[in-house]
């Protein structure tokens, strides 16, 4: 038994951290939040594509590095609240790799290289959210219908759309997307409602489409949990550093037991998220058959745990924690967004329960 990362994974963590701290510090996320129309740094995505990051989830032959490496990278991206749909891009690349269509291969290569942005458009309006029965239709080589909360849908070069007839690929139409931007609390994450009546390529039948969506949900939950872990880890560092410096009543406030116990609780939540996430990544990588269960366990845990940690970091910083200028809100917002996607906390609780070994008769 061993919990530690192997040498390659440890090296990946170091080099990813160095790259992100240099090229994408939190100040860059701030710029994206406040100024960027695109909502992400396109040139960074090209660089990451060059380095092979977008293909992390591919098979080893295609340059993938495995689920543990994926979790390592996602955790690092969480630490800097890396802007844009990078997790969604890696999921799309993985999905395209498993579609037999020739056109899928072409888009996989472009998306994997970071030269095209491809994401999955799955969400529909409340009441039709069952991914197994989308209301969007594919017929006569066109996709018709509406998808909502498509991450960076307005910026995408192509979308993988779940339809009642299976997965379809919609390249950006000549006239651009019929997209309505939605403003959510994390200004570095952009979502749109998309109305489709566009030419499309069929990728799968409904059955294999559903299987690929289930894979993407499981891997997305893992990636989101890993990002949430990174967010919590960094958030706690900020809280401990601040309370160790800031003085009140003639002492650093971090010497007060009430605050120490709060930070201890934050550590328990954070480290437990690490344990659950990397155990799920390990199960995914080794194919133990528990991956769906364990990734739901990780995601169901990470959301509430992360809300606690990020919320308490704001609390421990006091007034400045509530300002736009200080960083804790950036982490709280990203955390909250991640909790809502790739399966909500409630969905993963139910999925964990349904798959729990102890529910077997």
């Amino acid at each position, binding site marked *: 038994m061993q919990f530690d990362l192997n040498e390659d*994974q440890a090296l990946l963590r170091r080099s990813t951290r160095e790259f992100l701290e240099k090229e994408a510090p939190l100040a860059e996320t701030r710029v994206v939040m406040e100024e960027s129309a695109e909502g992400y740094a396109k040139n960074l995505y090209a660089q990451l594509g060059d380095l092979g990051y977008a293909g992390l989830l591919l098979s080893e032959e295609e340059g993938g590095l495995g689920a543990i490496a994926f979790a390592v990278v996602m955790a690092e991206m969480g630490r800097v609240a890396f802007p844009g749909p990078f997790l969604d891009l890696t999921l799309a690349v993985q999905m395209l790799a498993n579609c037999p269509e020739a056109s899928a291969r072409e888009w996989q290569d472009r998306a994997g290289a970071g030269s095209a942005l491809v994401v999955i458009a799955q969400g529909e309006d409340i009441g039709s959210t069952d991914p197994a029965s989308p209301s969007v239709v594919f017929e006569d080589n066109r996709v018709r219908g509406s998808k909502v909360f498509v991450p960076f849908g307005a910026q995408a070069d192509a979308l993988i759309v779940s339809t009642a007839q299976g997965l379809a690929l919609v390249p950006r139409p000549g006239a651009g997307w019929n997209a309505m931007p939605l403003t959510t609390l994390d200004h570095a994450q952009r979502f749109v409602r998309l109305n489709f009546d566009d030419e499309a390529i069929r990728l799968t039948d409904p059955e294999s489409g559903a299987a690929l969506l289930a894979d993407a949900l499981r891997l997305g939950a893992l990636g989101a949990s890993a990002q949430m872990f990174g967010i919590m880890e960094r958030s706690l560092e900020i809280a401990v550093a601040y309370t*160790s410096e800031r003085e009140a009543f003639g002492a650093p406030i971090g*010497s007060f037991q009430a605050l120490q116990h709060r930070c201890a609780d934050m550590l328990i939540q954070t480290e437990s998220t690490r344990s659950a996430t990397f155990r799920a990544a390990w199960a995914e990588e080794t194919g133990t058959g528990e991956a769906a269960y364990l990734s*739901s366990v990780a995601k169901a845990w990470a959301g509430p745990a992360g809300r606690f940690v990020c919320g308490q970091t704001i609390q421990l910083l006091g007034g400045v924690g509530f300002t736009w200028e200080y960083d804790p809100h950036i982490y709280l917002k990203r955390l909250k967004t991640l909790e809502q996607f790739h399966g909500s906390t409630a969905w993963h609780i139910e999925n964990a329960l349904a798959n729990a070994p102890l529910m077997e008769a």
Partner: protein
Amino acid sequence: MDLCFTDAQIQFQSEVRDWIGAHLERPFTSEVRDSAHDANSLVEVRRSWQKKLNDAGYLGMRWATEWGGRGATEVEEAILQAELNRADAPVIPNFLGVSLLGPALIHHGSEEQRRRFIPKMLSADEIWCQGFSEPGSGSDLASLRTRAEPDGDNFRITGQKVWTTFGPWADWIFVLARTDPEDRYGGISFFLVPIDQEGVEMRPLKQITGESEFGEVFFDGALAKREHLVGQVGEGWRIAMTVLGYERGASTLASPAEYESQLRGLVSALEQRGTLEQPLVREKLGRLVVENEVMRANGLRTLANIAAGIAPGPESSIQKIFWSEYHQRMTDTAVELLGPQGQLEARSPESRPEIDWAYQYLWSRAGTIYSGSSEIQRNIIAKRVLHMPTAR
């Protein structure tokens, strides 16, 4: 990263499972439900279970072979504990002796002490209790005031110990006593004291569960022989602190295994009530399942680090807080979901056969207090993991 057991460890696990299947007559909960038993006969059930474990070589497995060990690793010990807890096997009456005193004697005791005490401790022919806490010294253990004064070659012990688990049935007590009032840590020594003597009075204390599993002990010039001093005078604190960390691996998987069994019992009770499909019930149950699985992830991580030779250190504080507070949340929720039935005591008509929820609900209050309270564990995390500033 590798969170799998090796083939040999899996083999050991199945051996243990088979052995428990062949030797455990019924779960301990069923023993407790049996109205033919009283507190004394339940202790005898535990004693005879310990003898079986000892005969099979399952006690002190990491010790040297001459002391009953088999050169086992912490992973194997953790597997054994998890299987025992899963099966609801009785807790051995000498669990404090085996987990604390055994290592203390092996690492710090004399050859004579090992020969004299270890075999009977393992066979449960002598039951040991622990004399650490005092009425004024719990979390702040080093403030203890029970004193040991030289009397010729020997020592005379005077003072009071409390929360003495299994005290009412114990033959011997290992005691931390003050040999130097001026030296907070270096003035504490470690003694082995027979209970059946003038100068020792053991009084049972009634717990919130109605049992009297622990007691208080009064020493009034009780005799502790020189040959029953463990280590040197003044080494008691160091010895106690070392052995408290000795068993860090064994329990890593035991709590989630035990709680999973309890959750199984909850699921079948809910099924019978016809409420298992209710969304609010499923959410509460699902959260318990998730948290227990996260606890197991923490345990696997700690165990894997130990197996890889990485000292776990303060991770054990996380583990202690997690299992003890989880058990409170779990029993709270279970009793709530079971409605009035959740309050039925084991021997009441209509109580659930598999889990004694009323008892578990009450017993769970102890876990956050004993072996370093949740508050002390949080102090440890803040200081030793987060390195937060100390109060001026």
